[in-house]
């Protein structure tokens, strides 16, 4: 699953650590999500959606294979 987390974070001029702190996870988790190595759980995805005030589908979008 791809995501636009890095762009959204950059728009707000937040560091990975700052974003991680706001959603209660580690910086490594944010990094793994941004690089596409880890797909967040639904609660975390909703937390990010709520934090950026954007719908889930505008933050996370499927790869070409639909996953």
């Amino acid at each position, binding site marked *: 699953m791809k995501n636009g987390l890095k762009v959204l974070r950059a728009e707000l001029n937040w560091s990975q650590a700052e974003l991680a702190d706001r959603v209660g996870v580690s910086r*490594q988790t944010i990094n793994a999500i941004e690089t596409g190595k*880890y797909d*967040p759980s639904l609660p975390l995805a909703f*937390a990010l959606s709520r934090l950026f005030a954007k719908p889930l589908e505008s933050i996370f979008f499927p790869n070409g294979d639909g996953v």
Partner: protein
Amino acid sequence: MSAILGEQAAPSDRQPQVALFPFLKLIGVRPVSKQSSHIFSEDAVIMALGTLWLLSYFGVRFYLESNPDLARGARIGLAFIPTPIFALFLWRFIQGIRSADELERRIQLEGLAVAFPLGVLLLTTLGLVQRATELKFEDWSYNHVWPMFVIFYIFGQAFARKRYQ
């Protein structure tokens, strides 16, 4: 839960997000860490308990090897001395895992998914080798097998952690 849902909680209200992984620290692998000062104290407790268990294990082992004439009951009683210390270590370690964030828990799970089958492989292979030939107690025994489980755990952790870096 409020932190997970994105609400702003005071840092002091939050549970530590990261478990301690003492064996990883021994080889210099940095655990996922968010609140280093908070984590350090939790890590220190678990590390201290792990060290205490190791010391008690080797202490008892050395004593038993040095005193072969002790009564059987006393020897068996001594052999169980490290057990409650390890139980305490395990309790704090599990607490650490439960307070870890979701990626860290995933890493733990994947690490164990590597380590557990390797442990089974080691035991089954040793069982077959023992049927094939006589193994000397000094060469291969439970004394030598358990450190391998620690090594498998370290390997599994490193393998899983690298995947998400």
